[in-house]
Every structure is written in structure tokens, then in C-alpha cells.
């Protein structure tokens, strides 16, 4: 029978900026990855082993392990001053499912969803799945929010999606920026989806301001988090949502229809991770910082690349001076033995950029940057 995929899936496939993930020739140094190169910290691994042995092998609560939800709610309540309870929390199949379920739960066909960009590519995919209308709004050249453009785009928008710290630029939107966003949104019924996947990966000892801490954002906030990045748990698949109970209730409907509950034992390990807190990940953070400094020092010396220093996450979004279209740049680099991500994957203003991940060892970074330099010098 002639199979024709559904219109929704077709929309996603057509619009998605994410590449299919082609093969890298052997010997390629990859600076393309979006995940920590460290193993999960041992106490978390041990908690999983324990949970599996202790019989966390049955269906769990569809909304997530109740103890885990309570713990997440307590933390969110402490940050925000909002009395969140476990009912405001949904434990999800990674941050990915949190984003998808949140958007499917709130965005109707035709609804405008504002995406300050460059930004993580999954938001666009979820908006397409929902049949919403994505509205890209380029950030300033320094990767911070352009409020003039935002203000205009936000009119009648159902949602704005903010990635903070930003994948791919490493920019961190500070308290003032968030407050200003709150002012822009005040009096509207526009929702804010705040994805703070890299909240605990911020450098130079700078404090990070969560959207949870900004009063004017509270009533419209859908806070999305993942265990993946901070705790090097990408393969475990645990994320979560915190929002007003009514919003969480509708996201929950979608999530459980798509996923049912998620792995019971893994949630016990996530609970252990959250109890121990980001201190557990301090050695990783120190390593990222060292690598960031190294990458920036190298790029500063390159004639054909320039980049703003990232304040968070583990990516550098570098601008290159060449006339080649993005796809050819990536091809040349791959031919030169190094894989990176193409700027336009993260939105139209990513043209002329590449994203380098420094979730890689210093040796790998050195070799990768040597190759990048050689390729650009040869263009």
C-alpha cells in the first residue's frame, strides 16, 4: 500500500532544521555533540542499581514518582516564592518530551509561537507538529534579546520559547533581561516556555537567574528542565515541567497519552541526583570552563573566525568570514577531519556561523581547532 505520512509528520519533516545526522568518516574529530563527554556521576549510577534491585520495576505514577515531584516542587517553590506542589510537576521522557508535550498541550493550529533565535532546534519541530506558526525573531549580534523586534512579534502570540542559557550561543539572559521580558508580556495571555537545560552550566562563578525567580513571569511560565546536561544523564531520559497546576494538568494529558509513565527506577536515580544537587557536577563544570577558555583563546587568534565568549552551556557559536553557504562550510570541515554543527540549524540568523561543542577533551579540542583553522585558512 502506498504509505503517505500524516500531514503533521510531514510538516515536521519539511520544516525541521535538524540534519538527519550523516556519517562521519573514521578519524573525524567531532565537536558536534550536544551532550557531556563525562560518565554519569557514580552516586547516581549506584542509585539506579539500587532501584532496579529494590523492585522499582512496576508501573509508576503517570505524572512521575511522587517523591521526585515533591522534591522538584520544593526546589521550584524556594526559587520562585510560588507555592508549587507535586501537582504542578510532570516528570517527562527527557526535556524533549517536556517541550513536545507542553507545546502540543497549548498551541492550536495557526497559533503564533515566537522563537528568539538562534535557538535550540526542537522548539520549531514541536510547533510544526502542533500546526502552530513559528515566528523567528533574531537576537542582537551579541546574542542577547532584541526587545524592539520581540515586542512587535509578541503581539497576539500564544507562546514565546526562551532557551536560557542558550544552545547554541552560550548567551545567558540575566535578571534584567528577564524582567524586561516580563514587562513586554504583562497584560497578555502569551505563555512563556522557559527551557533552562543548561542552568547549572554557567561560568566565572556568575549566578544564574531562573525565570522561576522573576515575579512578572510566574503566571505564564512553563518551566522545562532536564537531568541530561548537568548530571551527564542524556541516555537516561529524565526531564520535567513545572507550571501552574492547570497548565501542568493539560501537559500531563498529552505526555501520558504519548508515553504513559516513564522508567520507574531511573526516576529514583534522578531523585538522588537532585538531592545531591549540582555540586555533584562541579568537576565537570570546572572542566568545561577550562575548555571554554582554551577554545576562546584559540578562536581569538584565528583570522577567519570570531565569537562572543559564552557565559553558559558548552557551545561556542562562531562567525566565519567566508562566502560559502553553510552546507558547504560543513562539508569542507568534514573533509578536513572535523565535525561541527551548522549555524542555520538554530535559526535563520545562524547563517555564517558554526557551533562548536566543547563537551570534548582538551586534546580533542586542540586537534579539532587545528583542523578548523587549517580548513578556513585554505578557503
Amino acid at each position: 500500500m502506498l504509505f503517505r505520512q500524516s500531514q503533521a509528520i510531514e510538516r515536521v519533516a519539511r520544516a525541521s532544521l535538524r540534519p538527519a545526522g550523516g556519517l562521519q568518516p573514521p578519524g573525524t574529530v567531532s565537536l558536534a555533540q550536544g551532550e557531556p563527554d563525562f560518565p554519569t556521576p557514580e552516586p547516581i549510577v549506584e542509585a539506579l542499581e539500587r532501584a532496579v534491585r529494590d523492585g522499582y520495576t512496576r508501573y509508576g505514577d503517570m505524572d512521575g514518582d511522587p517523591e521526585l515531584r515533591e522534591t522538584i516542587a520544593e526546589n521550584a517553590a524556594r526559587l520562585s516564592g510560588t507555592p508549587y506542589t507535586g501537582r504542578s510537576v510532570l516528570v517527562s521522557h527527557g526535556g524533549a518530551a517536556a517541550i513536545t508535550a507542553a507545546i502540543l498541550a497549548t498551541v492550536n493550529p495557526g497559533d503564533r509561537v515566537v522563537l528568539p533565535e538562534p535557538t535550540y532546534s526542537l522548539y520549531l519541530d514541536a510547533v510544526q507538529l502542533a500546526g502552530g506558526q513559528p515566528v523567528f525573531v533574531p537576537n542582537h549580534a551579541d546574542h542577547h534579546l532584541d526587545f524592539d523586534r520581540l515586542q512587535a512579534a509578541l503581539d497576539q502570540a500564544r507562546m514565546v520559547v526562551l532557551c536560557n542559557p542558550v544552545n547554541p550561543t552560550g548567551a545567558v539572559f540575566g535578571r534584567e533581561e528577564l524582567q524586561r521580558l516580563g514587562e513586554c508580556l504583562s497584560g497578555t495571555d502569551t505563555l512563556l516556555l522557559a527551557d533552562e537545560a543548561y542552568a547549572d552550566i554557567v561560568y566565572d562563578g556568575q549566578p544564574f537567574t531562573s525565570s522561576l525567580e522573576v515575579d512578572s513571569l510566574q503566571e505564564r511560565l512553563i518551566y522545562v528542565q532536564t537531568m541530561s546536561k548537568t548530571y551527564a544523564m542524556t541516555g537516561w531520559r529524565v526531564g520535567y515541567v513545572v507550571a501552574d497546576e492547570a497548565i501542568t494538568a493539560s501537559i500531563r494529558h498529552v505526555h501520558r497519552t504519548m508515553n504513559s509513565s516513564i522508567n520507574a527506577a531511573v526516576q529514583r536515580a534522578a531523585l538522588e541526583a537532585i538531592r545531591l544537587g549540582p555540586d555533584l557536577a562541579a568537576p565537570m563544570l570546572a572542566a568545561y570552563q577550562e575548555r571554554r577558555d582554551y577554545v576562546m583563546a584559540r578562536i581569538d587568534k584565528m583570522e577567519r573566525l570570531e565569537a562572543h565568549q559564552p557565559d553558559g552551556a558548552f557551545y561556542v557559536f562562531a562567525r566565519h568570514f567566508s562566502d560559502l553557504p553553510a552546507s558547504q562550510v560543513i562539508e569542507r570541515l568534514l573533509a578536513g577531519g572535523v565535525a561541527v554543527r551548522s549555524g542555520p540549524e538554530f535559526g535563520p540568523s545562524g547563517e555564517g556561523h558554526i557551533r562548536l561543542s566543547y563537551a570534548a577533551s582538551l586534546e580533542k579540542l586542540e586537534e579539532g581547532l587545528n583542523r578548523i583553522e587549517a580548513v578556513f585558512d585554505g578557503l
Partner: protein
Amino acid sequence: MTETVSAPSRRVSARIGGIAESATLAVDAKAKAKKAAGEDVVGFGAGEPDFPTPAAIVAAAVAACADPKNHRYTPAGGLPELKEAIAVKTRRDSGYAVTAGQVLVTNGGKQAVYEAFATLLDPGDEVLLPAPYWTTYPEAVKLAGGVPVDVVTTEDQGYRVTVEQLEAARTERTKVLLWCSPSNPTGAVASPQEVEAIGRWALEHGIWVLADEIYEHLVYGGAEHVSMPVVVPELADQCVVVNGVAKTYAMTGWRVGWLIGPVDVVKAATNLQSHATSNVSNVSQVAALAAVSGDLEAVAQMRAAFDRRRQTMVRMLNEIPGVDCPEPHGAFYCYPSVRALLGKTLRGHRIESSAQLAELVLEEAGVAVVPGEAFGTPGYFRLSYALGDADLEKGVTRLKELLSEAA
């Protein structure tokens, strides 16, 4: 500012309006709360085996925990070795010859059901759902933008849908038939002849079949599970099979299922999954690999226990005046009609519906059952026999004592 603006929190997309609160959960939640409060409740609501996951599978998982490669993202569609093992297992168990490229590993059978519908359905497409059905089907259909069409079967026909009934419900918009045998909630198992007739009908009309085979190994008393695309091989091109480790290996909490279909369908569904959730938790996938590569000894033991309980339960239920239960031949559920009790009075309450009766039964007898409302057919109860023999007898006895008072 205009005053017509509603609070952001009240904005919910239309597609959610279509999804009912899972009715199975409501009674379950109440029963759990009572239990937690120390009350003596016998729960017949369970949708999962009461056995532990076999030790060898647990051991494989424990070994997998510390391996850093399991801490990382893996291909969204599943570990290649697991897909291969699922293809081999499928050939072994149902005789359906498929390749690893036709397999997508999902977060339980439930995700497979949703993704199959999401991949196949456009807004307005109709899905024939033989009722009573597992609550998830209509919810997933609606989330995917489709329209569920109930095709109601009754106890008189052993809850086995006929070609005539399906044909009567077929329209220009009929896109998919949902096929679940052995069935949750009825325990009905279609005969090979019935499976073939329905498969041929679907083939003739170009209707896709979503065949949920999650209870394939739980059949009793000479009943046989046959896979529709095996009995009707030409159907393979328009058939998606859903399965998982949950029921066969007592692995409900691990969340590993899969769908099997034509390569292009699987590609599209994999693409969806790569955006929506990405890979299933790796340690679970390794555990599932151990499960499907191993033997079927554990399920044979569960089957023996379930068979014994099934016979006890169906016998005891049919001894209750006003309760009529056809013998279930699969899964681990009995689905008695309580319609003869409607309109009667019990402890001062007029019995209006099975939902209300289920609440009464929980309050008055400390017995939790799931009302037929949850499965698209009011007037019935679903009782799971995935619980210990003693509890089972105690619970059904209480039910009998209470319901015998109805007048």
C-alpha cells in the same frame, strides 16, 4: 489593555479537549488512597503482572548501569542489537518474518500506539475501535487528530467483533482498524478463522490495521494467538504491530515496547520519536534485550498461575446474581456484565450505572474494580486476576456478598 484576555493558565489547545481523563485511573487512585490510609482494599484494577521481573533480566540491567555508553544518547529508534533481537523474537513467537529495519523501540507499547496513529492519521480520519477497548486507543487517536469510531461488542458474542459489524461502521474516512487480541479489557481471543476474515476484509478495503499483540503469550485453555499479518501475509504492507516486554516479562515499569511496520512507516515514526522523546532509556533497552533474547520460561510460569486464577474468578463471578461473565481466554482480565443490576437498589442507593456501582463496591466492600465506562461500554466491570489467589477469593467473595443484597 483589553479586558477580553484570559489568564495564560486557562489556555489549552483544542486537541487536549479531546482527551478524557483516563477513567481507569480514577478508581485506581481512590483505591490507592484508601490503601495508603490503612484500609483493607482488594484491588482488581491492576494492569500489570503481580510477579517480579525475572532475576536474569534485573542482573543484565544492573550490569548495564555502570557502562558509560549507556549514559549517552543512542539512536532514537533503538539500540541496533535490540531491534535485531526483536525481529528474531517476532519470527520465533508469532512467525512474522521482519527485519530490524522494520522495528522502532518505544517507551512502552503505549508510545508505539500513539506514534503509529500520529504517523498514519490526518485530521478527520476515522479509526474503528472494537469496544470494549483499552482506554488509551481513543485518547491516542484524538491526540493524533483522528476520530475514534466505536464498534460495540457484547458478552453474547464473547466480545469478538465480526466482519459484519466492522463493515457496518466503515465509511470513506475509515483509515485504520485497531485490533487487540488477546484483549484488554475483555480477555477475548479471536480464533484464527476470525483473524483471517477480518484481515481479508481490511485488505480488501485498503484499511490499515494496528495490531496490538502485547498479550500474545497470555492465552489459556487451548486458545491460540495468531498474528494478523501472518495469517494474511498480503496485509503486511498496511499493518503496524505493537508489542512490548511489559506483560510477557513482568517489566511494566521499565518502559520498553516497539512497533513493527513497513519500512517507510517505521522511518516516519522514528523521525517523530527523534523529535518527541529520542531514545528509550538505555538501561531499560539492555534489560529488554536480555528479556527478548532469553527463553519464555517466566511467562510460562505466570501463565499457569493466571490460568488457575482465571478459572476461579470466572466461576465465582458467575455465581453472583446479576453478574454475567463469558470465559476469558487471554490477558489477565475478566469482563462481566453487571447490566442486570442496574435499576436495582443496594444499601439504600439506586444503581444508576456501572461507574456508580464501582464506587459503591469500593466504599461498601473495599473492593476496587474498573467500571466499563473506562472502556467505552457502560454496564460492565473489569477485574484483573493479576493478584494472589487468596486475595482474589477474598475480593470476589466480598463482591458476591455485597451484590447479593441488590434488590
